[in-house]
């Protein structure tokens, strides 16, 4: 049982019903025993009354209640009886209470011996006394059965009221945004929740401090790491100018520094784009525009490798609605740049790249495809892992080995997740190569 309310309600009601009804059954049994005694006393009193009568003066049959019969015997001779009484002796004539069967019914009998020669027998139908007693007792038990739904309703209200602070706290935490570091406060806090709320507030404050430190580290690292690398690159340029030529070792060193710079940039991007920061900068973005801007900014790289890049916008609907999503401009530009960079890197010079924008009623799709070597099916899940490098020889080019940091697609995956988008890899429609398809939830305009 996952709900505390259901657990308490079910448990309480079950225990209440079980013990209430067991008590009712026990009550029924003892009440029936009491009723039996009362009926027996009634028989006893009847027989007592009969002893006061002068039997010899009675010439009519004795009248009794409908469920009772009477016999008066004198020296083995029936001298008086009620209308329904049999002609034979009821029971065996021994004094006291007993049971007897006659007139197709079972009877409770009481036999009294009077003045040694008279025998008074009073009998009552057991079924009638049973039904009479049972009806009375059941009527008294009925409220306990009918009361259960009422009790259940009251218990439900009490439990709901008792759990209200917990429900309020849960709702408060549910609507609390990732970048909201204000303390959680409830109007009335029960003792049981004081510690919980104190702990939550303490964690929130610590989280705020950690994130602040992280932000500072990110900014410091950006500055502290970029500056020496830039200085290193200038020094390399100066050495090359002074020497007048670039040796094999020098080129390797230059390539290593470039790779280091790329890796640091990617690491910083990954670090900067946390869900907390994303929430702050999230706004409505027109997808077509951002694709055009990113392609324009990336075009020099494409041009350098003599590759072609085409942007294709599919005919989506007749109303020419804008394709809008909720996102962060910097994050989306980084995402597209990484996909384009990845495509360009693994596509040979003169190759072909294509960006397709498509949509349906619920989603917007961006596909970046190339006619490079493609990605083996077995590797399509792995390429999004940090620092994963393709094992395929076809994919490893000298340029990719030098410039690929192993973080580009991890960042793509991370940014897609931030935008509640999915990224899948398939075969390119350009004959060969890979196609990365992003699916964003469409913002209804």
């Amino acid at each position, binding site marked *: 049982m996952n709900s505390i309310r259901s657990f308490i309600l079910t*448990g309480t009601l*079950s*225990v209440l019903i079980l013990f209430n009804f067991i008590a009712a*059954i026990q009550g029924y049994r003892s009440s029936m025993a009491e009723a039996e005694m009362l009926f027996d006393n009634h028989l006893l009193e009847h027989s007592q009354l009969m002893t006061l009568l002068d039997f010899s003066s009675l010439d009519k049959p004795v009248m009794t209640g409908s469920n009772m019969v009477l016999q008066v015997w004198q020296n083995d001779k029936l001298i008086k009886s009620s209308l329904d009484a049999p002609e034979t002796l009821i029971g065996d004539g021994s004094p006291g209470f007993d049971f007897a069967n006659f007139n197709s019914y079972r009877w409770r009998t009481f036999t009294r011996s009077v003045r040694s020669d008279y025998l008074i027998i009073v009998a009552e139908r057991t079924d009638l006394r049973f039904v009479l007693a*049972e009806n009375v007792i*059941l009527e008294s038990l009925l409220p306990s*059965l009918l009361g259960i739904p009422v009790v259940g309703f009251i218990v439900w209200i009490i439990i709901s009221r008792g759990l209200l602070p917990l429900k309020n706290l849960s709702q408060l935490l549910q609507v609390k945004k990732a970048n909201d570091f204000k303390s959680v406060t409830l109007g009335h806090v029960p003792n049981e929740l004081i510690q919980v709320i104190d702990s939550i507030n303490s964690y929130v404050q610590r989280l705020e401090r950690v994130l602040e430190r992280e932000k500072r580290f990110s900014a410091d690292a950006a500055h502290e790491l970029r500056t020496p690398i830039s200085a290193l690159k200038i020094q390399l340029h100066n050495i090359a100018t002074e020497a007048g030529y670039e040796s094999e070792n020098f080129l390797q060193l230059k390539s290593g520094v470039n790779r280091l710079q790329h890796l640091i940039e990617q690491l910083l991007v990954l670090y900067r784009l946390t869900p907390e920061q994303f929430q702050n900068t999230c706004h409505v973005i027109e997808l077509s525009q951002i694709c055009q801007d990113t392609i324009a900014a990336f075009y020099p790289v494409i041009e350098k490798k003599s590759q072609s890049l085409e942007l294709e916008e599919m005919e989506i609907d007749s109303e020419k609605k804008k394709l809008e999503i909720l996102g962060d401009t910097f994050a989306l530009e980084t995402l597209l740049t990484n996909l384009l960079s990845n495509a360009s890197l693994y596509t040979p010079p003169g190759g072909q790249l294509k960006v397709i924008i498509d949509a349906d009623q619920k989603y917007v799709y961006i596909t970046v495809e190339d006619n490079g070597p493609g990605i083996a099916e077995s590797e399509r899940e792995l390429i999004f892992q940090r620092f994963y490098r393709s094992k395929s020889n076809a994919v490893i080019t000298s340029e990719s080995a030098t410039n690929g940091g192993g973080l580009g697609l991890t960042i793509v995956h991370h940014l897609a997740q931030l935008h509640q988008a999915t990224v899948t890899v398939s075969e390119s429609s350009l004959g060969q190569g890979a196609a990365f398809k992003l699916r964003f939830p469409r913002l209804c305009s």
Partner: protein
Amino acid sequence: MFLTAIVFMLRELIEAALLFGILLQLINRQPSLLSMQRHWIVMTLISGVVAAVIFAELMPYFSPLFDYAGFEIVNACVLLIISGILLHTAWSYSVEQKLVKSRQYSIMLMITFVMMRQGSEIILYLQSMLFQPELFITNLFASLIALAVGLSSGLILHLLLSSLRVATGQAISVFLLAIFTGNMLSQSVQQLTQAEFLPPIIELWDSNQILSENSLLGAVLNALIGYEATPTYYQLLAYLLGIILIFLSPLWRNGVAKILKRIVNS
């Protein structure tokens, strides 16, 4: 009449409610022991009710079979099937998840059979109430009380078992399942003896003077641990066999016992 009706209804209801409580606990707390999704539980309950109605309708056709021992024979068969499924579930237990699906169907089938057997007897009893209009209210009242007591007993057992540590809850649940299996086997032997398929054997003892089977406590104990005031040798043997077979099964040896051992060692 009221008490008789309660005793009858309780005997039928508590058995099914307790089994359901135990199984629900095992399903919820330890999916690797028994696994069943929520909608399957609802489906099982529905199929149990449908099967009970059909079985009750077919009962008049069964009774004249085998020289008017048809009712006992069919009942014994149903009890043997229930015990068989319980034993099969316990013996086919494996930590491999592949078997979980087939175990789920076995449990569904077993609950359906238990509900069919107990439910059909309740339906026949309720039908007989229609021929006694003067006792209708009394019987209805008794039935509602028995239903409430049966359901709440099952729920309390389920909640109590769920409140225990997982291993303890499982150990008690499997122990109760073992007793339930013994009870089912013992009852099937009793039915076969009544149908004269097994030779009548002298009763081992008669504890009716201490606790009558027809008393309220006797009925509850009968449903809980299979209490019989006048058991025969065959019944006792069947009862013990059911319990031993469950404790020898992989469900106990590889499932519960290992978890308990791990806890003791840690």
